[in-house]
């Protein structure tokens, strides 16, 4: 349920960005990066996005959610790791002492804008 206020923030930011870039009404796809460790559910994000953009400049925009895996480095052996699931241990040496550097993202990565041919 907590996706709703988050998507509300997302939509407000998108409006401001689109206006700043002079592309309001032309956004076709919004690429969002979502870390696998967050508690936000992609399907809920896209559903609320549709609800909150209906009847607005962003109505024709589609939200594309790309999941970012949980990744980092083992502090013991230095191995770069990507976690597919639990437990939180290094696949190489088994140490639980990990520096997690990705997996908590909630980032507007890019916008795809319709080329209206008007130059």
């Amino acid at each position, binding site marked *: 349920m907590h996706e709703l206020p988050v998507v509300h923030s997302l939509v407000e930011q998108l409006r401001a960005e689109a206006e700043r870039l002079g592309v309001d009404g032309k956004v076709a796809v919004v690429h969002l990066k979502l870390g696998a460790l967050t*508690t936000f559910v992609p399907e809920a994000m896209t559903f609320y996005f549709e609800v909150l953009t209906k009847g607005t400049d962003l109505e024709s925009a589609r939200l594309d959610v790309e999941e970012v895996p949980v990744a980092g480095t083992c502090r013991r052996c230095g191995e770069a790791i990507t976690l597919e699931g639990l437990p939180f*241990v290094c696949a190489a040496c088994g140490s*639980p002492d990990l520096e997690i550097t990705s997996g908590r993202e909630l980032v507007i990565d*890019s*916008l795809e804008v319709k080329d209206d041919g008007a130059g």
Partner: protein
Amino acid sequence: MEIKIVKKVLEAYEKLADENQQLLAGKGVYAFNLIGSPGSGKTLLLERTFEAAAAEIKPGVIEGDIATTADAERLQRFGVPIVQINTGPFGGDCHLAPNLIRAALEDLPLDELSVVFVENVGNLVCPAEFYVGENEKVVVLSVAEGEDKPLKYPLAFREAKAVIINKVDLLPHLDLDLDVLKRNVAAVNAGLDVFEVSAKTGTGVAAWVDYVKGRLAAGRN
């Protein structure tokens, strides 16, 4: 045409939370953000903590609930400053957001306090997601909730620095295997400090209170 943006959706939230932390640090106040399921025993843990050490640790409390002031009323007998936040009255937010914490901090006499306990809305999902400016999150998990909760709600246990395994007095009546629960906690975050507590009987409360005092002492040095 693709336009690169790379902007955090929760940037405004994070900025507010950072400002809360600066406000607390400026006053020399340490903040715990207690998260746990409804009924895990967060409020009773605070009662036991204050019975043991309210005069020494000079606490303030921010109580988050969707509705009612019941928790704040339970803590009133200690005479500690309490701000009740209701996110309701019937539905409301499932967590405390940094802007609500800011308003609550402004209502607390921070100059007189050493520590603030934020008792978040009972929920293991959403409060884990939001940094509100605290120094550390602590999960309160009761043994009646089952061994699998760390595996089902990994973010809460990843974000926390300590976990209180509460209601251990109930263990003789439950099928729960405490070793399995602790193994599951370690699978998600082996770096957590783990306290086995019964806030009801007082078992293990002293170790937790020492931990709190240790954090405050470290913050002062």
